[in-house]
């Protein structure tokens, strides 16, 4: 498929996707973006550059997401254990795709005890960190120099393709919520793949604090943990320009 053909498809996907934070009509979009359908064909040559090196740009929306209720979390970490034992055959919270341990004692902001903080040492609130299955642009996927983060049906989760992953950890530095894990045993990154639609963490929670539901966009609702420091590979940056530049 040529990129001239692919691009309108990309736009169609963006425009038809549901659950974005600021949905706007097709007309609005075109107006805001300052391009027109005709304009796209003008940009064609940019998209067409080097078909074999076509950058992977994820446009498909995920279908599901795991949502957490921190007020119900009892801090048992059974979700982290289920994630890694039932998927990977080992108990390894450091590579769990649901992250509780790091907030367990003091909350997401670090070592602030008692009334100033959260967690077991603070007001008791335990924040479970979960992958947002980001809409386009997907920061982890964009940062991957090897296009190893791909969309996988049936959930359309953003998944690390272990065969492609080279273990460079750029995706770890790209996620504002620090939701990419690294398996030190395999030297590969890993992230929440929604367990093919039956998340183990949700099944394992003894307090009904995790729920699997239709995807919704949480990217502007959950404050980031860090400022991402990953660099987008130049080919992808150029492709971003194709659509996003004024």
């Amino acid at each position, binding site marked *: 498929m040529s990129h001239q053909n692919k691009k309108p498809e990309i736009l169609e996907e963006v425009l038809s996707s549901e659950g974005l934070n600021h949905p706007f009509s097709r007309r609005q979009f075109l107006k805001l973006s300052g391009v027109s359908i005709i304009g796209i064909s003008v940009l064609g040559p940019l998209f067409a550059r080097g078909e074999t090196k076509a950058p992977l740009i994820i446009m498909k929306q995920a279908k599901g997401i795991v949502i957490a209720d921190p*007020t*119900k*979390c*009892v*801090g*048992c*970490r*059974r979700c982290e*254990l*289920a994630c*890694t*034992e*039932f*998927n*990977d*055959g*080992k*108990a*390894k*919270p*450091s*590579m769990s795709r649901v992250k509780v*341990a*790091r907030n*367990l*004692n*003091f909350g997401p902001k*670090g*070592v602030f*005890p*008692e*009334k100033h903080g959260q967690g*077991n*040492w*603070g*007001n*008791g609130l335990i924040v479970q960190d979960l992958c947002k299955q980001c809409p386009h642009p997907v920061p982890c996927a964009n940062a991957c120099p090897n296009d190893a983060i791909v969309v996988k049906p049936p959930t359309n989760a953003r998944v690390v393709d272990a065969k492609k992953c080279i273990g460079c950890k750029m995706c770890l530095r790209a996620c504002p919520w620090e939701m990419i894990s690294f398996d*030190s*045993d395999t030297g590969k990154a890993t992230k929440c793949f929604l367990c093919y639609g039956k998340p*183990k963490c949700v*099944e*394992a*929670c*003894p*307090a*009904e604090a995790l729920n699997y539901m239709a995807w919704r966009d949480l990217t502007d609702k959950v404050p980031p943990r860090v400022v991402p420091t990953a660099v987008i590979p130049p080919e992808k940056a150029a492709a971003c320009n194709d659509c996003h530049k004024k």
Partner: protein
Amino acid sequence: MAKYGGWVGKILRVNLSTGRIWTEDTIEKYKDFLGGTGIGYKVIWDEVPAGTKSFDPVNKIIFGVGPLAGTGAPCNGRTAITTLWPTCWPKALVATGHMGGQFAAELKYAGYDSIVIEGKADHPVWLSVVDKKVEIKDARRLWGQGIRRATIEISQEIGPGAAVAAIGQAGENLVPMSVVMNSYSHSAGGVGAVMGSKNLKAIGVRGTGSVRIAGKKEEWEKLIKLHLSLLGANNQHVVPSSPQPWAEYYDAASRWKGSRGKMWGASTPAIETGTCNPHDLNRIAYRTNNAVHYLGDIAWKYTVRGNGCTGCPIRCHTMIKVPSAAAKYGIPEVGQNTCGGLNFGRSFFKTFPDGPRGMTGIEACMVGMYMSDDYGIWCNYSQLQRDFQKLYYEGIIKSKLEEKEFKSYSWDKYEKGDPSFLFELLPRIALKEGELGTALGLGTGYLLERWSLSEEEWKKSHGLNYWKLGHPKHHSNEEAGQCGVIINTQYNRDPQCHSHANFTRNGLPLEILKRLAAEIWGTPDAVDTVGAYTPMNTGKAKMAKWSLLRKELHDSLSLCNWMGPWVASPLKERGYRGDDSIESMLYSLATGDKKNRQELDQVAERIFLLHRALTIRDMGTKEMRTQHDTIPQWVYEDPSHRPVYTKGTTHLDKEDVKLAMDMYYEEMGWDKATGAPTPEAYRKVGLGKVSDELDKKGLLP
């Protein structure tokens, strides 16, 4: 790939005198002892000579965890800490303290199956364990600080996810009644001062590694779900405390408190615990509320949520938020603990202005937890508080203190039940200030000796629950008749065994208990209604042996004996059966070392016999029956003079208890006259060398 899963392969060894840090291979040296208490007893047997005192640098502390710690096996958060026990009177003998929290799992993720500490640092230090990087660090800035401040500073250094096991001022000051504590509220009693004697303020652990499951992950997942389905509430109570739509039975004494309309009232917004149908594995955490269990229904509205150890869905610690305590006493408004820790402050008082289940009692709990869990004071299963009440109300404190010191306490506040009295008392225990503070911190045996009081009087008293060697009973005749008594004779502190009580008190009606007992111990006669006992029989001896072995097995595998065993369940369709082989299935699948129930129980027996051998070696006598396995007089008396074996009384007949001990020794294959294991008993479990060593010392029957 390592041959075995479960274990992570290395024992971390640290000599604080020389600063040497090294590792040993777990499998090579300790596989036959599993981990936890098993490794603890083995190290003490091999390396700590008889006659060593608790605070001698040659004494060792073993932070033992087992192959299931850090896995998804439910209730695996326990660290067993073994050392020569400083409150064991009149002589330190081997014993173990157990803490939950996150320490056990974190240690495994860091790559260690246990830590053995020996020697004594020449200045205060803490041990930093961050995966492979292990360092002895200067703790002079932390010395004199409470557990919380020490934990915060160590967490700032090695990361907020660290598990920090620290001692408070009590441990530093060599107060025997002191704890080591991790994860805010999880403590092991008795160990604090042994760490203090080594100048070891804390162990901070951060681990990013893994515990491998040897078996197929699908099978492991199935087994975990089976185990979860068998869980009840705390203490494996398998019926709810109030009628529920799904429940055939209920028992008001059950710790299964969740119900429609019962809310975690201090959560924002409040959360309903609901009917907690046992088939709904996503509601297990709402079953238990130990604040309500101990403080009454008033505690619901102060409940933030349940809390507890790694991997445990039961949540036996309850986090409570009490703004009035914060306003009155200037302490944080949130507190959490369970059992003796929750009740630490409250138990000192005989009365409160608003009664035993009022607001003042809750505030006393808050003040007590705030102080004792920071100073690191131990309650010795609330013996400290029971002793205190007796000593005060019988005028003994007044007679033993100089007038000036006596008057320095606000006794009027104490008598009125004013929690602010705790601000006067608890720091003085931790800081060894004055005669009263010093004496209370010694533990019952040494306190009695210091004040020239008679232990015999303590052994006669009904309210005190004192048993022997400076320690109280723990689930004795009041829970399981003769079986409970046997269990309480076997250890060098309170036995900390729940296997028997968690069965007799699980809430099922007697006919079901008897049906299950027949399947497990071969006869329905093994169990009676609590408080309506029948004379001794072999079923009860079998149950006692099974209970003790399960305790050691749990403490060595890192399963919680407070939650298990799981031989009964809340499942009607299973006839309320649990599964007596759940431990061996978990062990086999996690480690890859396939053992059936009987084979694993034999390992547990090996561990239990090593404890027995250590006790005999260090006491220097084989006369265990008369010198060690003693029973206090109160067991044989009923304060209301009801006849034995009538309904409502838990006292027992002396001759029948003698028979009980006979039958127990016989069941164990030990010598009945001395209560010492025979050479054959040692050999049967692979402890031939231990038997030979005891033989050389004339310590075989």
